[in-house]
């Protein structure tokens, strides 16, 4: 594997995480529990897809093989997507959505904060800009964790259920392989163990404050970095890609 190949793959991981999480959030447009929340979720979805767009443009330029950001978003198959297993999980209810957002926002917050220092100037610039938006995303989802955890018995129960269900996908975010190792050596990528410690502190603190518990003895699921996903991703891509694929090669 060359550095160029590693960097291409690394950008896809960052981009896919945002694209798929943003897509899930966009499914909720016009379905929010209250109008203000509808606006907030649509706005966050737009931020995430905007960041994914910029990262995919960069990935395409690294690959330098005639593909553009749309080819990468709409013409790759499931096994070539590298978003975290957590990001592709369906919304189910508002508690599921917010727990998922919170766990990923906290991850992105620390990851992007580190990547600001990347020796790759484009990654540094994109994550510096992205971190400002993610800071707001994390504030939004943390506030909801607090509200839902401490609100009513029902909201606490629903949120606890969501944590119990989603926790098994959390470790997958921190898996590192050859791509990471190569790029960490070059000062481009970040050691995810450092991110994990900070992430754990934030998550533990927020859950404790909101009277929520992290489940014990959970069997973790892995695979996203090899493009091995849960069954949900195929349906998501079928919907997202179908129009683009149905009319090959045209402009939109």
């Amino acid at each position, binding site marked *: 594997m060359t550095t160029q190949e590693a960097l291409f793959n690394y950008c896809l991981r960052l981009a896919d995480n945002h694209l798929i999480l943003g897509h899930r959030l966009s499914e909720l447009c016009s379905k*929010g529990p209250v109008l203000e*929340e509808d606006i907030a979720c649509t706005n966050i979805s737009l931020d995430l897809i905007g960041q994914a767009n910029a990262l995919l443009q960069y990935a395409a330029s690294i690959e330098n093989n005639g593909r553009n950001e749309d080819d990468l978003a709409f013409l790759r198959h499931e096994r070539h997507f590298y978003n975290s297993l957590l990001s592709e999980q369906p919304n189910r209810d*508002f508690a599921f959505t917010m727990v998922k957002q919170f766990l990923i926002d906290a991850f992105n917050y620390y990851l992007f904060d580190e990547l600001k220092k990347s020796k790759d100037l484009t990654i540094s610039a994109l994550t510096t800009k992205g971190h400002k938006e993610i800071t707001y995303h994390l504030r939004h989802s943390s506030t909801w964790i607090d509200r839902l955890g401490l609100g009513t018995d029902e*909201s606490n129960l629903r949120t606890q259920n969501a944590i119990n269900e989603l926790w098994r996908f959390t470790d997958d975010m921190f898996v590192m392989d050859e791509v990471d190792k190569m790029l960490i050596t070059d000062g481009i990528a970040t050691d995810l163990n450092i991110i994990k410690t900070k992430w754990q502190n934030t998550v533990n603190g927020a859950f404790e404050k909101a009277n929520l518990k992290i489940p014990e003895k959970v069997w973790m699921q892995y695979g996203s970095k090899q493009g091995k996903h849960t069954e949900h991703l195929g349906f998501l891509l079928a*919907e997202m890609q179908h129009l683009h694929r149905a009319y090959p090669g*045209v402009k*939109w």
Partner: protein
Amino acid sequence: MENALNEKSFQDKIDEGISIEPKDWMPETYRKHVLRQISQHAHSEIIGMQPEGNWITRAPSLRRKMVLLAKVQDEAGHGLYLYSAAESMGVTRDELLDQLHTGKAKYSSIFNYPTLTWADIGAVGWLVDGAAIMNQVMLQRTSYGPYARAMVRICKEESFHQRQGFEIMTVLSEGSSEQKEMAQDALNRWWWPSLMMFGPPDEESPNSANALKWKIKREGNDELRQRFVNQTVPQAAILGLKVPDTDLKWNEAKKGYDFGTPNWAEFKNVISGNGPCNKERIANKIHSHKEGAWVREAAEAYAAKKNKASIAA
């Protein structure tokens, strides 16, 4: 006697172009009329999110997806300004939503038509937002202050919406034969409902006379409809698309187009709940409102606890 005096000074204000503010005296019929119009307008923005939101997850490029997300987010924001303008007349948002859910309050009947293909997103922006702008530009000078001010903000964003719709149509009409066919089909389906957006002919419109006298509206339905046709027909020509009206003809004498009569029976039918999507639009709205009940309760309970804690401290 006092009422007659009030009414005279109210009408004088209107005639002098002074805006009516929430605390000013106003005839009950005026209040009801404005409130009904703002509420319909707000609900239209909110229900309008559904036919457009329908294509967000399937938008054919990342750029189109982002523009559509931004647009639908704007519509939600417009709904918010308008609910606030309505609240200035002493109703709560819960009451307004309740009226929507029970069918007591109406919204623009255009949103009861389905968005069947991607080209419909172009046609909705170009035609539906185009028609809406005709109305909204006029409403920036409507006599009720909070409504006029909401419209100023809304108009700034609506012209961007119309442009993005026209841009989608441009790309499709310059694209493959299948794309062009998709664009023509969308125009065929959206043209007549768009003309109906201005409301029935003035002579049959029960609310038109008062609306003009009180300067809630400043132009009649037919006048606005004519202006929309005059503006839009040349745009269709630029796109190389055919407007689906065999009576359409330039009239040199009036410097405008003569055009056919919309199917007003269909209009009445859609307004009374029998359009292709009336049931779904309201059912979806009620469903998400019900699904969100526990979230709203949690937020209220949380705020109450915080409040209590801060008082105790």
